[in-house]
Structure formats: C-alpha cells, structure tokens
C-alpha cells in the first residue's frame, strides 16, 4: 500500500524551479531515501510535503487523502512528522517539555481547563508525561528529562528532535539529514534507532548525504538533481545508474 504520493509536484521561487514535477510514491512501512547533490531541491521537497511551503502546482496524497491545500499543523495532525536539517529546538526548555509539546496535538484541554485545572487536563497531562518518558527512553535519553536542550550534546539534540517528532505516533516520519554533524560511532547508534522506529511500523522518508547510511537503511532510493527526479530504485540499481553517476561525478 502506498502511504504518500506526489503527482507532478512543483515548487518554484520566481524563475527558479526548486522542485520540478516530482512524482514520488512511498510504500507504507518502508524506509525510502532521497539523495542528490547540494541544491537539488531535497529539503524544499520536504518543506512542500510537510506544508511548511505551499506547492506551486501538483498534488500530495497522504493515506488516500489529498493534503495539498492543508496547513502544516493540519498535516502534522494527520500523521506526517518531520525533523529539520539544522537541529532547531525550543530554546532552553527541558527535554521533557520539548517532547510534551510534540504530544500536544493528541490532547484537547484548552484555556478553560488550564484556568480551572480540570480533570481532563490532569488526565491528559499524566498521559502526555507517560508518552513523553516512553519516547525519550526509546530515543536513548532516559535520565535527561530535566536537562535543558541547549545543554545536550549535538547527538542528543538530534535524538531529541526525533523524539519530539515521534511522540504523537505519526504514520510517516520525514528525517532531514539525520547524520549531519555527528561522528561515525554516533551515526551507527542513530541508524539503529531509525531501524527500531521503522520496525515499530512508522514509514520513513529520509534525506541523507552519507552514502553508507542510505545504502544500509533504505530499500528504495530516489535521486533528485536540479529539482528533477533522475532515478529511482533499489540501492544496487542506484549505484550503477549512469544518470546518477553523472550527477555526482560531474557533467559533460
């Protein structure tokens, strides 16, 4: 079953076409990789899928529903979660508070509940704290709940960003360069975490520059160059694709 599809998806900034009529299909339960040279439009594609940017044309279908005209928070609530390339978090809030914000979309208590400290608020807060502690444990951050995000290491911040995205139990997780800025050992740990998440049934679409990470994690890979999809297939097929070699090794 296909969880996410894009049909001739396009995003242009003035005369520049960052995403050029991209057709994409992500099978439910898979780990799919997106690779391509710098400036190929990978992050823009993520921004359009997660609705951080409006599409210029084309369609995005998630789980059978057309989500092309929804807002970012609406697609998030439908089950598309994401991390950002630069590990941006919520300032100096604690790790636990960060994850609790991620769980907010699952709770209903509003202003009146907050002012009256209603039963619903207490119940939801307990539920949110349980979910947050669980996901921090999965992300390998047990014991760091009360630490400020800015006091965590780069690797821990990366894990925290994934925890925030994961806590509301999304169907699809978009990871933008999960291995950027961390060393080889830490990357190995992160690969294990991503595999665990996928094993729990979350479909994963990831942008990655490190080839060994992509080749190890993904069963399908899509290659973007200049906003266009130039190849798609298994890691083996991609490795020998002339168009890909051309895009990476230089143009005529």
């Amino acid at each position, binding site marked *: 079953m296909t969880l996410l599809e894009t049909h001739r998806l396009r995003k242009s900034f003035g005369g520049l076409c960052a995403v050029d009529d991209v057709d994409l299909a992500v099978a439910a339960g898979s780990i799919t990789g997106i690779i391509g040279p710098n400036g190929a439009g990978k992050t823009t594609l993520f921004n359009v899928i997660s609705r951080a940017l409006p599409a210029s044309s084309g369609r995005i279908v998630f789980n059978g529903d057309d989500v092309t005209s929804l807002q970012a928070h609406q697609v998030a609530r439908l089950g598309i979660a*994401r991390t*950002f390339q630069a590990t941006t978090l*919520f300032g100096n*809030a604690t790790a636990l508070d960060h994850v609790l*914000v991620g769980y907010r*979309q699952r709770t209903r208590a509003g202003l009146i509940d907050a002012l009256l400290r209603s039963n619903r608020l207490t119940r939801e807060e307990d539920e949110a704290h349980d979910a947050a502690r669980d996901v921090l444990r999965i992300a390998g951050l047990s014991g760091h709940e009360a630490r400020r995000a800015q006091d965590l290491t780069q690797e821990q911040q990366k894990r925290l960003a994934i925890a925030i995205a994961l806590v509301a139990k999304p169907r699809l997780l978009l990871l933008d360069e999960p291995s950027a800025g961390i060393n080889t050992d830490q990357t190995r740990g992160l690969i294990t975490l991503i595999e665990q998440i996928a094993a729990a049934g979350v479909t994963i679409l990831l942008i990655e520059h490190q080839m060994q990470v992509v080749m190890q994690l993904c069963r399908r890979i899509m290659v973007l160059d200049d906003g266009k999809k130039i190849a798609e297939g298994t890691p083996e097929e991609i490795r020998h694709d002339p168009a890909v070699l051309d895009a990476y090794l230089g143009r005529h």
Partner: protein
Amino acid sequence: MALLHPTAHTPRSGGPGLVPWAVLVAALILPLGLPNDYYLEILTQAYVFAISACGLNVILGLAGQLSLAHSGFFGIGAYAVALLATKAGVSFWLGLPAGIALCALSGYVIGSICLRSKGHYFAIFTMAVGIIIHLVIQKWESLTHGHIGVIGIPGPDPVGPISFDSTIARSYLALFFLALTAVAITRLVRSPVGRTLMAVRENDMLAEAVGVDVMAAKRTAFTISAALAGLAGGLFAGFIGFLGPESANVEMTFNMLLYVMVGGIGSLSGPIAGTFIVYGLSQVLAVVQQCQMVIFGLALVVLIRFMPAGLAGALRSLVRSRVARAQ
C-alpha cells in the same frame, strides 16, 4: 531584537513554594501601615497597572510578540465601564465584565489581522492600531466627550456588607483582582497551553511542524492580553471616577513595556515587581518631572546592558549560580 528572546522557560511543575504566600501576607498588611490616603491611591493604581502589565506579558513574554496596542485595550475597557455607567446607568459590577468581554472580542478580531505580520512589522502594526483606538476615543466627541473626558463615574457598588467607598477597601479590591490575575497566569504558564505558547515563541516553524496551530495559539495569547488590559482599564475608570483619552495613549503602552522589561519579560512575578518599582519611582521622582524620563532612559539602558532578562532574570541566574557553587 534580543529583548524578544526572553530566557524564561516553563517552570517546573510542583508547589509554588512559600514566597507567593509571604508576598500576599505582606500585601494584606501593607495598606494598614500607610500614613495617608495619598499612598493608598498610589498603591491601588500600582495594583491596577500591574494587572495590565501582566496582560502585556502574556503576549510579549509568553507568546514572544511585541504588541504596542496594549493601552488601546486598556482604554476600551476603561471607556466601556465609564460610558455604560454614566450613559446607561449600568452598575460597575456589570460594566466590568462587559468591558472585559468587549476587549476580548476586539482582541480576537484585531489579533486575527495583526498576527499575520511578524517581528518588527507586528510591533509597528499594533502601534498603529493603538494610535487609532486612542484617536477614535479622542475624536468621537458625541460618545466620549473627547478631551474633556468622562466625569462622575460611579465606583463599585457594595457587595453584601462590604462597601467600596473607602480608599482602603478599593485597594484591597484591586489587590484581589491582581492576585486572581497572577493565579490565572501561573496556571496558564504551567499548563499545556502555556507550554504551547513557549514553543511558538521559541520556534514557530518547529511548533507548526508538530501540529501546533501557531496562529490560533498567538490569537489566544493576544485575546487574554487584551482582556486583562480591559480588566485593568475598567478598574481604573471605576476607582478614579474620571477618565480622559490619555488613558489610551501610546505612552501608556510604553510605560507598561517599561514595567515588564524592568521586572523581567516572560517571568511570572517580574511584571508585578517591575510595576511597583517603576511606578513607585515615578511617583518619588514626580518632583523632578522634567528629568524623570532622562533618569528612566539611562536606567533602562543600564538594565538592558547588564540584566537583559530584567530583575527576575538576574535574580534567577544569581540563585542558579549559588546553587551550582554549593553543589
């Protein structure tokens, strides 16, 4: 704009500790020790302005949006109470909630428009809104009597056996509303709603990506902020008994901003402490009125240079470094 990135964070959950109770007891005893009604009047006004400053802190400190329309809402609340009482004979106790509701409604509508802009643009946009509200109040003479203002606004009627005719009774009434405001904001900050506002303030892209309706969250903060300005304005009108358009002046907004900045943007107690310090000082310095703004200006520069998070922030870092050294 470093000021818009306060270092305040969602406080740990758990008991509020003894400090708020000690402050409340002190506040209850204080009016009894004041030598005359003049000081009581000052104290009462400080309570009222502190409520307004707390309201500004909701949009500025919690949601991170510098709104300069605040005194406009203060004016709307004040004029609602004043005009309902003098023109329609509506009692203060009905006029006050009506004024708050009107402010909340106009806050919701105005917020929906202004919050489409961000950062400096939002500040400029809201300042224009504040000026427009002030001008409407000043120029709509048939309703507001323009420059002359509204006189003879009746104060609050007695509630059961309690009369609010004396200055001291009014000061306790103002204290009651300030305490109520402080409790409400504390509960708000320590709730998922407050946490969501913190997320919007710190990183709206990430907040939106995890399913937070950023616009709705900011609009909620703006509405609460306007409603609290309306409460303060309504109390102001009922207590002072007369009202001029200068109560909705943009200068009033900058006073509130000064109170919040001195006390500490985004902290719970900062805006209240800041109001007492700055408003108190302005009364002491009233004798040197011409130089007052020079003194405040210099003090503000020094404060922002050395204590960007205000007095509350400076105190917090002091406590934290002491604790760290003790460990």
